[in-house]
């Protein structure tokens, strides 16, 4: 079942490259994937073993290198996110002027890479699948991007390459920090080894730092974030949706899946560093976001800023916070994808995204204005949306995990500062809404068409999922419980 999720986009991409009609093939593949992801979610047995739908293929049995896919609740949620965002991204893709086949193939390869990474239970393939997206991203921004696309494409490629090789060192270190006879890349086996205390404590701190920096660069952790806003601003809309919505979650997923459960003591050791950096994400990047003068740049920075909340949930290391972080990954993926999709549509009509040129667009385009408003509210974290439910969990979790004797009241201070982040994001989102959709409408845009009905569907899909998860977060949290339990250790200690 999970193999379908990975293979379907690849097959569609190859067919498109070989001459099949590209857009229908991509739509069909992403629709199939959406259905399969939903089916997997419904078939998942919450009482059964953590990883289900397991299938494997020995690559080098004598080195214990195996192609091994399987999914637990956390991975299923991410797979669903990937499927939804891919579907929406493919759907909202406007007519591609040149190299259409290659465009869709690149999108599908990114999707396949994300699917593979989230479905892998073997760390080697977990890593390798993520990198599958590197070349398509380079091509998507370089060929079809806008603005300063060349420097943006170079920057994201080299930055991510650097990050992923640091991550590779971390994974190799992790592999080598268990006794020789037990070495394996299988996450399940590694978790058992970690539970049995077989992971060498001497190397744990160094390995965790490598993992944190490696994943951190991929997530745009402050101060390694500079690649992100520019790349998202220059990328074509579907690429920005996929990258900001899905691919960036790979690093967070890696922290939740690999770093925390396997190296809990090291995670605690580096908590203070992480807190300082994530406050940088929330406050510093938040202020930078306010000062942005273009909608696309603002969205890019806001996506960097919101990573801070997820980091806060991860840093809390308790069930509440981790649940919140996992759900926020899902929610943020949907909301940022919706925002980029709407911004892309606005940009296509007005051919500028600078705030000073825009205004009053809600009048000719009521649907886009309404949808943008909803997505912006979701992104700020207003009740009713999944973002609210998860951010509340993150804040409660973080506030709770205060440990006596930590400097500056560690977590409590961080939580209070992060709460101010919500105000900051309200400021920039509402200002953006005002600048784009309210106020004086320049005469030349009075006849701009609103979004076609068929194109409304993907945006409605994204927003509806957000609302559903906002009203019934339990449905999703129930899936997350076992994976989060493996990652959180404070309760088990006390």
């Amino acid at each position, binding site marked *: 079942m999970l193999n379908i999720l990975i293979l379907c986009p690849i097959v569609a991409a190859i067919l498109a*490259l070989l001459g099949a009609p590209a857009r229908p093939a991509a739509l069909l593949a992403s629709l199939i994937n959406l259905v399969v992801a939903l089916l997997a979610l419904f078939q998942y047995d919450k009482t059964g073993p953590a990883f289900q739908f397991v299938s494997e293929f020995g*690559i*080098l*049995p*004598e*080195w214990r290198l195996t192609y091994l896919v399987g999914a637990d609740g956390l991975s299923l949620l991410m797979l669903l996110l990937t499927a939804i965002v891919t579907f929406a991204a493919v759907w909202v893709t406007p007519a591609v002027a040149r*190299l259409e086949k*290659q465009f869709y193939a690149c999108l599908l390869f990114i999707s396949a890479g994300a699917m593979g990474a989230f479905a892998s239970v073997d760390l*080697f393939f977990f*890593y*390798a*699948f993520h*990198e*599958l997206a*590197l*070349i398509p991203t*380079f*091509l998507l921004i*370089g*060929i079809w991007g806008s603005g300063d696309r*060349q420097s943006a494409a*170079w920057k994201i*490629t*080299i930055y991510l*390459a*650097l990050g992923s*090789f*640091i991550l*590779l*060192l971390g994974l*190799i*270190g992790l*592999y*080598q920090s268990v006794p*020789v*006879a037990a*070495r394996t890349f299988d996450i399940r086996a590694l978790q058992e080894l970690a539970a049995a205390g077989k992971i060498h404590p001497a190397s744990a701190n160094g390995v965790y730092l490598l993992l944190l920096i490696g994943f951190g660069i991929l997530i745009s952790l402050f101060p390694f974030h500079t690649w992100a806003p520019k790349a998202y601003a220059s990328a074509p809309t579907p690429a920005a949706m996929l990258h900001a919505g899905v691919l960036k979650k790979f690093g967070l997923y890696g922290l939740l899946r690999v770093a925390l459960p396997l190296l809990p003591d090291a995670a605690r050791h580096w908590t203070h560093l992480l807190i300082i950096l994530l406050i940088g994400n929330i406050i510093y990047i938040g202020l930078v976001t306010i000062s942005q003068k273009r909608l696309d740049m603002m969205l890019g920075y806001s996506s960097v800023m919101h990573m801070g909340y997820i980091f806060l949930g991860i840093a809390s290391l308790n069930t509440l916070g981790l649940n919140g972080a996992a759900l926020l990954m899902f929610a943020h993926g949907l909301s940022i994808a919706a925002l980029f999709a709407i911004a892309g549509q606005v940009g296509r009509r007005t051919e500028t995204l600078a705030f000073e040129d825009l205004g009053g667009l809600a009048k000719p385009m009521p649907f886009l204005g309404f949808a943008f408003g909803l997505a912006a509210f979701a992104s700020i974290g207003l009740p009713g949306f999944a973002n609210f439910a998860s951010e509340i969990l993150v804040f409660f979790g973080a506030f709770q995990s205060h440990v006596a004797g930590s400097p500056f009241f560690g977590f409590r201070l961080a939580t209070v500062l992060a709460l101010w982040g919500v105000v900051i994001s309200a400021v920039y989102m509402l200002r953006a809404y005002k600048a784009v959709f309210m106020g004086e409408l320049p005469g030349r845009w009075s006849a701009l068409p609103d979004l076609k009905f068929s194109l409304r569907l993907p945006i409605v899909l994204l927003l509806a999922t957000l609302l559903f998860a906002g009203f019934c977060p339990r449905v999703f949290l129930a899936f997350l419980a076992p994976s989060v339990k493996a990652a959180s250790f404070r309760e088990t200690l006390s």
Partner: protein
Amino acid sequence: MMPAIYLEAIVLTLGVLLVLMEAFSNSEEKTPVAWLGIVGLTFVFILTFFTANDLSASPYSAFYHADFRAIFFKRFALLTTIVVLVLSIEYRGVVQKYVFGSRPQAGLGEFYALPVFTCAGLMWMASAVDFIMIFVSLELVTISFYILVAYMRRNAGSLEAGVKYLILSALSTGFFVYGITWIYGVTGQTSLEKIGAILLGLKVSHGPLLFGFMLVLTGLGFKIACAPFQIWVPDVYQGAPTPVTAFLSVGSKAAGFIVLMRVAEVFLPVPWINHKAVTILVALAALSLLYGNLAAMPQHNLKRLMAYSSIAHAGYILIAVACIGSRYANIAVSFYLAGYLLMTLLTFLVMAAVANQAGGDDIVHFNGLGKRSPYLAFAMLAAMASLAGIPLTVGFFGKFLIFYVAYEKGQFLLMGIGVLTVAAGFYYYFKVVRAMYWKEPADDTPVRTSPLTGATIAALAFCIFFLGVYPAPVIRALEGPPSDNPRLLAR
């Protein structure tokens, strides 16, 4: 099961046959010489799978080993030569332009025959475990390269390359032989095995032996093109005919590395040498990584870029050589070289095809290749992705093994430099990708390739992905089938 030594004999006979064919055939057309070479070498390649690995039975075992690794590198040499011959056929127009004689294809026959002799030398070197044997086979390889590099005798660049290669190569050979004499002077042996036993057992004078070892290392450093012995590389690579450049960068480098591995395996386990030798190897690796990768970044000519990239890859492989003693160091070196063979030869094949049409091998000549010939561009993309080290390609698995052994041995300095230079590598390899896909082509005519070249390109590109996902065939060829090695399972 035939003895491995027959393989070299067959290849040599094949070479002589090709020269005779060139001399006595009345036909003006010389391409059949290359075809016969390709077919013959393919036949020998198949024969390698029916060759005995058994050492003890061989009467030559004192100076000739036919272990898994030797057979592996024999295959390596054969495969390289086959692709070089394909490349030579593709490139024959250029050679013809600069070599004219009484007949239109004069001189081409030898151009096809000489690589076969080089191949015999490379295969012999893969098995040589005695300094005299190593030296003789090294010279067989080097002398045929002297001719090949300067082959286009009416082309100033080729001649310049020939002279530079001749002088520096002769110098390095001098170092190598001088080193051997010092080692012989201390130990009284030329066989690596016996030298190893003496080093571990009796008391030997340290200074002279280390001096000899360093001289040998210098000579080999030239062959593998690592910094600071890399001065010759860019000019020679750019000036030499493209097939010879490919041969140099793959064959000559691999030959240097197999000898280096055999020598390092004898010297590094000796405690009082180990520390010093590893320090020097680390320094060489770090220098090559930094110099190769940084100097490659501003290059505009793809051939020259590949020259610097070849220095850079020597640096990566040297990381693993510095880690000899780790269980996987040898595999890392050999696997990396196998991947390097695939991706480098693929690059040169596409380059030759494009240069034939565009008239040059600068990166700008690749502009818009994605539109003109999507398949060629995709093959080049595969080669560049693999050279840069993107997962699910063979180049990544090689780098993975290198970093693996480096981590195991705690070579943190090299790991740090390695990660930074990998990022630098992404920049200059992706420059080619950028040219192919971002830029608009100067003209829209597709690049034509012969069916043979096309098939070779497809096969190499396929292998890059196949071995990147499923590296087992190469590992098994190096290690033997898993059942023969039960201790592997424990690890």
